[in-house]
């Protein structure tokens, strides 16, 4: 069994005033990304009054394109509640992917305090992400 799951995927959420810290360990991929998105989204409510969402990748061993989709989704959700995303302790594999896809700057840009998602993220019907 352990051979099939060389590294267990874990998400640990810590909450301090205004900051949600999420430790992500293991492989963030096709099989685990939804778990991270769901877990963090549950804590990202407007009532929580968060100003920062810190994802701590110290224990991250692998990330694939679906994992990056999860980060892009979390960035949108954080922006929607006015929180800035931080990607801390980035291992090489994450750094490489962020550099290749050119999204680091976008992901970690300070959120506007208005708490609205980016203008262009509304779809054709004008609804926005929540």
């Amino acid at each position, binding site marked *: 069994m352990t051979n099939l799951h060389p590294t267990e995927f874990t998400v640990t959420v810590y909450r301090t005033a205004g900051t949600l810290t999420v430790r992500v360990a293991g492989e963030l991929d096709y099989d685990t990304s939804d778990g991270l998105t769901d877990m963090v989204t549950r804590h990202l409510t407007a009532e929580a009054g968060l100003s920062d969402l810190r994802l701590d990748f110290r224990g991250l061993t692998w990330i694939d394109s*679906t994992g*990056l*989709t999860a980060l*892009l989704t979390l960035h949108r959700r954080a922006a929607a509640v006015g929180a800035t995303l931080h990607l801390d302790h980035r291992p090489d594999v994450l750094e490489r992917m962020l550099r*290749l*896809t*050119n999204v680091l700057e976008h992901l970690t840009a300070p959120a506007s305090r208005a708490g609205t998602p980016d203008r262009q*993220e509304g779809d054709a019907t004008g609804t926005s992400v929540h």
Partner: protein
Amino acid sequence: MRTCVPPLVSSSPGTSARPPDAGHTVGATWTEAPCPVLVVDRHGGLVDVNGAARILLPGAVSGDWLHEHVPSWLCDAHRRITDGPRPADAAPLSGPIRERHFEAHPTAAGDGGVVWWLVDDTDRRLAEAALTDAQTRTEILSHVSSTLLSTLNVPRCMEVTASMAAEHLADAAVLVGPAKGWRQSLTYAVRGGPVSQVVQMVDVSGVPGLTEALQGFPPVPARWINPDDIPDWVTPDGFAGPVGSVIVAPLPGHGVPAGALILLRSSTEQSFSEGEEVFARLFAARAGAALSAARLYSEQATVTATLMRELLPPALTSVHGVEYAGGYRAAKDHERVGGDFYDVHPGSDPSQDTLVVLGDVAGKGLDAAVLTGKIRNTLHALLPLTDDHQRVLDLLNGALLSSRHARFVTLVLASVRRRGSRAQLRLTSAGHLPPLIVRADGTVEDVPSHGTLVGALPAVTAHTVRTVLGPGETCLLYTDGITEARGGPLGDEFFGEQRLRRALAECAGLPAEAVVERVQMLAAQWLGAGRHDDMAAVAISVPRSGPLTVLNGRAGVSNRRST
């Protein structure tokens, strides 16, 4: 209730082993016994009967002959027993008396007479028969289910259903499938005979109840119909004799009717009993479930195949003096599409750029494949704008942006134009692994293009690189499924860019197809049986030699070399 002393005891003290007073006790008991008791002398005359026997055989009184009141099986048994002693291990005698069934137990009376104790076992026999029937039917049903569920092939399911129905339910069975246009698929089976399937126009309304059974609504129970009412097409070839009884049972499917089953028995056979009708319904339910599962499966398989055809990677050939080759392997080996894609859009003439696209959508399987379809179509529409890769990417980004998800694509655009013996390339990577170029001398170069992934951010930027391929040189576009193929001797190591570069260095001068083949083969070997992501590669090569006289892209005729 009679209370007289039974004659067998009182009149024959010499032959009875029991003392006379014991006889009184027994006598008082047997007349009131709950089972019928007959005392018969050795000549077959009734000596006495108890109360239960008088209820069973009204009118039987002492002095009558036994054969006047009971069936021959008991008279014969009586005769045999008075002729000689019955063996101790003989099976109990039994037989019908007036619509009931009895076991007859003889005990000796005086003067060679016999006391017959009749035990009614009608109910037990019925229960035993019912149990055996139920067991047989359960066995048949489970056999039906296991046979039918082992196939998802609709014609095979219909064949098995008809054949088993003819075997276990009737002399012959006709399975009427749902209509295909004006025609009906009919499966005929005769017990012990072959199964035949035909598709033909028949008038289903000619069989009472069949139209309703085929519509599946309103739900109709299986019903008997008059054998005289059925049209000729219902009777299978090889059916012996006129039809005696007929049942039409609907085959209930998952929401859609799976057809109907017509069961036929010849007039020489017993007609269907109520229990058999219930069983036919159970049988039809199982067959219907299996048939509709098979039908749904084949419909889905058709839909998937249709969609798949649109999404499959194209076959690539030479265009305007430049060779193109592509290879693709989906993440799940049983699927043929996934999140990687490539296309080559030939320039309208040799002076125009040919656009090569290779990309990778986040995700796997059909979900991802559908998005690749959208991207490929959009890019096709944007072909007139490919002089400016940045603009194409901007427009594609706008088309893909959605608030519902952050799905994105990374891709490489390559615009290729043959100039003399060389090819000019404009390469743009949008968040994708940069292409690699194999020079004629085996040097492997990175193309330093980089840009933003497409479809998730409000704006994208990309940097286009221009380069030139000489004869025998190749530019390889590939997805990370190749470099991230996990395997090797330890099973968990990436194939990696360094191994890819080394492999490419050995490919200098090879045709495009050989380069793709080689790269795919090495990645597959590295993987072994390991799990992998979608893998795609496209090679753009300028042939090393040949009668190419293309000058300034004008003489396109000469690139027919390969045909």
